[in-house]
Each structure stands twice: as structure tokens, then as C-alpha cells.
């Protein structure tokens, strides 16, 4: 297992390098001259050219790419924002924890509410409880996150004046963003849990468990849920990725200085270094969470664990 984990971590290096090249290349295609945007309308052509030289924008693509990769991955110099001149590593040091905290809170709420709701729906299949849970989940999955954010602000900040609608501070400030973030998660987890529980409940080994005299509660929790967990873990993993993406918009709406609002600001202002480095960090977080998901699989299913160990051994042999 350790070998598998190490192999996956090593594999992340080329992936992250690939992401860096991909994002760098995409940014060079962006229409609009960053120098012009930085200097605003009053600048002369000479000023612009000087700034372009200074930023290295006049170098050929490969030279710039080489410099970027060298600085980032060999010297670990993340550079600074063209716009604010603040070092990117300082920004990320303060912003990444916020994004991560918000993401984890949303994820935990999604799991804590979504999975039990899905189980209740599956156990009461076709009855009132199921219908209510399914309908709520369907609605939750259909509301776009940014609209939900606006509706929450409308209700809790504008009408009721209970919660702040923007910025950061105490716990209060995280409530609305977390609600926005977890709604879709609760909905998809409820749906996935329900359907995989229904799959599993029809399996023969559940009948076996019943034939042994296992109580219904233990049939559900000990036998069914453990087996239903595997597709649920997949959804938790992919959902975490989607949430990181969706949270970019949530952060922008609630003016939370996190990674998402940083990158979106960078895109809008053609602040290339910010977008590049920010994307690399999000890709690392995403890849790590995917690795955690795969390790959770192995913990949930001995068959997958066996496959991982085997493939690790085989790879080593062929090398």
C-alpha cells in the first residue's frame, strides 16, 4: 500500500508539470496586453514596451516557458503579482488555508447530511420519507451555486439581517458560503447514497445476512453501507473537485480572499503569474484529494486493495 501511495505521489510530479505548461500556454493565448491593462489608458507606447520587456513578455514563448518552469520548480520562486507586486507565496500562504477550510467544512456537512438522508430514502423506498428526500435532493442538485449564494444573501443578510454577506471575520462569515458550498454536495450525496444503497440492498449477500438473523439496523449499517460506500466515495471525491471549482465563484460573491477569488481576479486583470501559480496549487490540492479517495477505496474494499498491491509489484518488476 505504501508503495502504491509513493508511486501515486511521484506520478503527481509530471502531472503538475503538465498543468503548469497547460495553464502557461493558455494564458499566452489570452487576448489583451497585460502591460496595457497594468498601465491603464494614459501610458505611452514606450512605457508599454518597457514594461513588456521588464515582464519578459517580448521573449519567445519557449524562453518564457523555460524561465517560468525553472523559477517555479527548480528555484521554488513563485514570483509576485504583476498587479499588486505582492509575493505570490505570501498571498497563497494566507489564502489557501481559507479555501481549504471552507472546502472541508462544506464537504463535511455534505457527508454528514447527505449520506444519512440517502440511507433514509433507500430504506423507505417508495414511501413518504423517500419521496421527500428525493425531491429535496433533486431541487438541491438543480439550483446553480451562484444563484443560491445570492438568494441566501437576500434572505439572511438583506431581509433578516442575521449574517454578513461579505468578507471574512468570525465563524458567522463562513456560514453562508458553507451553506452555498454544501447544498449541491448534500444533494448529490443523497442521490448517490440512495441509489447505491438500493443496489446493495437487492444483493444476495444481504439476503444471506438476513437469513442469519441479523437485525435490520445491522443489515443496513454493517453489511449494506460498507458495500455501498465505494461509489459514494467516488462521488465525494469528484464532488470535492467540483466544489473547489464552484467555490471560486462563491468566494468571489462573498468577497472571501481565498484561492478562487485570487485566480478569478488574476484572470480578469491578465495577472498571468497569479493564475498560473494559483492553478498549480489548486491542481495539487485536487490531485491529493483524488489520492485520498483512492486510498479510501482500498480501505473500504479488500478487492481494490489487493489490486493496488498487485499493480505496484508488477510495475516494479517491469522496471
Amino acid at each position: 500500500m505504501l508503495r502504491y501511495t509513493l508511486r501515486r505521489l511521484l506520478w503527481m510530479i509530471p502531472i503538475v508539470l503538465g498543468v503548469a505548461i497547460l495553464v502557461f500556454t493558455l494564458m499566452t493565448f489570452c487576448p489583451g496586453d497585460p502591460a496595457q491593462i497594468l498601465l491603464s489608458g494614459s501610458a505611452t507606447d514606450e512605457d508599454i514596451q518597457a514594461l513588456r520587456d521588464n515582464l519578459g513578455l517580448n521573449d519567445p514563448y519557449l524562453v518564457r516557458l523555460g524561465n517560468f518552469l525553472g523559477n517555479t520548480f527548480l528555484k521554488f520562486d513563485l514570483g509576485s503579482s504583476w498587479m499588486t507586486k505582492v509575493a505570490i507565496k505570501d498571498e497563497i500562504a494566507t489564502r489557501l488555508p481559507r479555501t481549504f477550510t471552507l472546502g472541508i467544512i462544506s464537504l463535511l456537512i455534505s457527508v454528514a447530511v447527505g449520506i444519512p438522508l440517502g440511507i433514509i430514502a433507500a430504506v423507505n423506498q417508495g414511501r413518504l420519507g423517500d419521496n421527500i428526500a428525493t425531491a429535496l435532493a433533486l431541487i438541491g442538485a438543480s439550483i446553480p451555486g451562484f444563484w443560491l449564494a445570492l438568494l441566501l444573501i437576500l434572505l439572511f443578510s438583506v431581509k433578516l439581517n442575521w449574517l454578513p454577506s461579505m468578507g471574512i471575520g468570525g465563524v458567522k462569515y463562513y456560514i453562508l458560503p458553507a451553506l452555498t458550498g454544501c447544498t449541491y454536495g448534500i444533494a448529490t450525496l443523497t442521490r448517490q447514497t440512495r441509489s447505491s444503497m438500493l443496489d446493495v440492498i437487492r444483493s444476495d449477500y444481504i439476503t444471506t445476512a438476513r437469513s442469519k438473523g441479523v437485525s435490520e439496523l445491522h443489515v443496513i449499517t454493517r453489511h449494506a453501507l460498507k458495500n455501498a460506500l465505494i461509489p459514494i466515495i467516488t462521488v465525494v471525491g469528484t464532488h470535492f473537485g467540483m466544489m473547489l471549482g464552484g467555490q471560486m465563484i462563491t468566494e468571489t460573491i462573498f468577497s472571501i480572499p481565498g484561492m478562487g477569488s485570487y485566480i478569478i481576479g488574476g484572470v480578469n486583470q491578465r495577472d498571468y503569474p497569479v493564475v498560473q501559480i494559483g492553478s498549480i496549487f489548486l491542481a495539487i490540492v485536487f490531485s491529493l484529494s483524488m489520492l485520498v479517495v483512492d486510498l479510501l477505496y482500498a480501505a473500504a474494499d479488500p478487492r481494490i486493495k489487493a489490486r493496488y498491491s498487485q499493480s505496484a509489484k508488477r510495475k516494479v518488476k517491469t522496471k
Partner: protein
Amino acid sequence: MTETKNAPFLEINDLKVEYFTKESVVHAVNGVTLTLEKGKTLGLVGETGAGKTTVAKSILRILPDVGARIVGGEIKLEGRDLLKSSEAEMRQIRGKRISMIFQDPMTALNPVQRVGDQIAEVIALHSNESAEAVRKRAEDMLEMVNIPRERYSEYPHQFSGGMKQRVVIAIALACNPELLLADEPTTALDVTIQAQVLRLIAQLRDKLGTSMMLITHDMGVVATHCDTVAVVYAGSVVEYGTKEQVFDHPTHPYTIGLFGAIPNMNVDERWLHPIEGLPPDPSHLPTGCAFHPRCKYATEACRTGEVPTVITPDGHQCRCHNTDAVLKGEGK
């Protein structure tokens, strides 16, 4: 206590079970009546989909929650009606007094639970022993079905099909049940292992003095292992008697057809004699005798109305209008 001294060990009276979907109702079991004496083995024979498994699952009351419904009848274990027992009482019976061996060992074991733990679970549920004692008993059970006790901690995917079925048998026999329901225990196995597994079941049954209901579609298996036989067609028992009665004097046209489909080694036959036609669609059963569309003895009376159960000359039961004609071989 409703238990009476003279009641037969297991008595099924007029059991009716339906499966229903939005579009249709499937009449899986239509008035099955059977009895089983203590220590004896009853063979339930019939084609796939005839309702044999449903009868077994009804006894344990482990039919699927959604879509299955026991419409009527009684299932009495030593005089006590299981269909009227509470769920808590049933849990005490399942695995302890009655247990079941399932058809497909590939899917009958929980893939994420250690094999030994699956045996230990049923022991722990029905005894008050310590965890170590339970584990030891589970290991003993593994050995009893010829699996080394060291393999207690392995998972089902590490076992072959035959070994899995032996684990299922170990689970079923772990608490010395009084009644064992064996649902086609060898169908999913390789031919070479089938005999071995059946022999194992029979040995353990004899050793523990268990009564057994053996579900099969294999007349050969019935011949070696059963005391009484019930032939099931479309959810009804069409012929019921001791093994000798049914094998020596098959009276129902369907039973005769089943025997005709077995190659006779003593006679040089060029063709087998399959039963013409297909088993009926259980959601649209034919009126009258369900077998009449396939029956060469069918008369007008077979097409409508109830079919009587007659006692044949040698004393076993047969559900047919035309037993006389059948016995004289007067088919069209």
C-alpha cells in the same frame, strides 16, 4: 405456547406468494401444501422460475421488502405459524433453527467482510459466548467444511467458487439448525465439485440430524438425497409423495416429462424427450391447470376451474384431472 406435540415438524398450508410491479402481478406461489418430518429430506423439483426459491425464502420470511407479498397460507414450525411470528421472534429462528444455503456462492458472501467473520457473525448472534470462543467455533466450522482455519481472515474474492459455497454451508450449519433449506446448492458450481459439495451437505446433515428441504432441478440429486419429493410447476405442487412412489409411478404428465428429459442409460435412445413448449409466464398464468397448454392429455376440463388433488393407486398425491388416462398411457 401454541406448539403441539403431534404437529409435524414443518407444515406448509396453502401458501400463496405474489411479486408485484407497477405493471403486473406475478403469481409465484399458488397454494403450496407440504409437510416435512424431523430428520427427513424433502426434494423440491421443478424448472427455473417455478417458485421453489420463493417457498424457501417465505419460510425464513426473507423475501424482498419491496415487491413481494405473502398473500395467504400458513407455515408451521412444530405447530407455530411463522407467518404470524413477530420480526424479533423470526430473528431468533433465522440462522439458529432454520438456515439456508443459497444458489449462487459468488454473490452470497459479503465481499468486504472476512470469510471467518461471516461465519462468526451467525454464531455470535445466537450464542452468548466470548469473542474468542466464537472465533474458535467459526474456525472449527471452516475445518468442518475442509477449509484450513488459517484462512479465517481472508476475503471471499480470494476463494474459489467451490470454497465459497463451502463457506456458505458452514454459515448455514454453524448453529446446528433443525431445518436446512438448500436452494440449488450446486447449480453454480463446476460439475466436478457438485457431487463433492452435495456429499458434504449430506454428511453434515446426517451428523447433526437436521431436516432438509433440497431445492433442485436435478432428478439424480433427488434420487440420492431425498426421502420425499414434491414436483413444482408454476407455483403449485403437481405431484407429491415419497421418492419411491414418485420415481416408480410418476403420475402427473409434467413429472413424466421430466423423467423423459433424462437420458436412459439402459436403452439405446437416439433422442431425449424434452417437454414441449415453454414454462408459462407467471404474470399471465393459464386458467385451469397451468400445465394444460403443454400437456398431451389435456381435456376440456383442464382449461378452466380448479384442478383436484387425487390420491394415486400407490397412495401419493397428484394434481391432475386425468390420472387414469395418464396411467393407461392414453395420450393423444
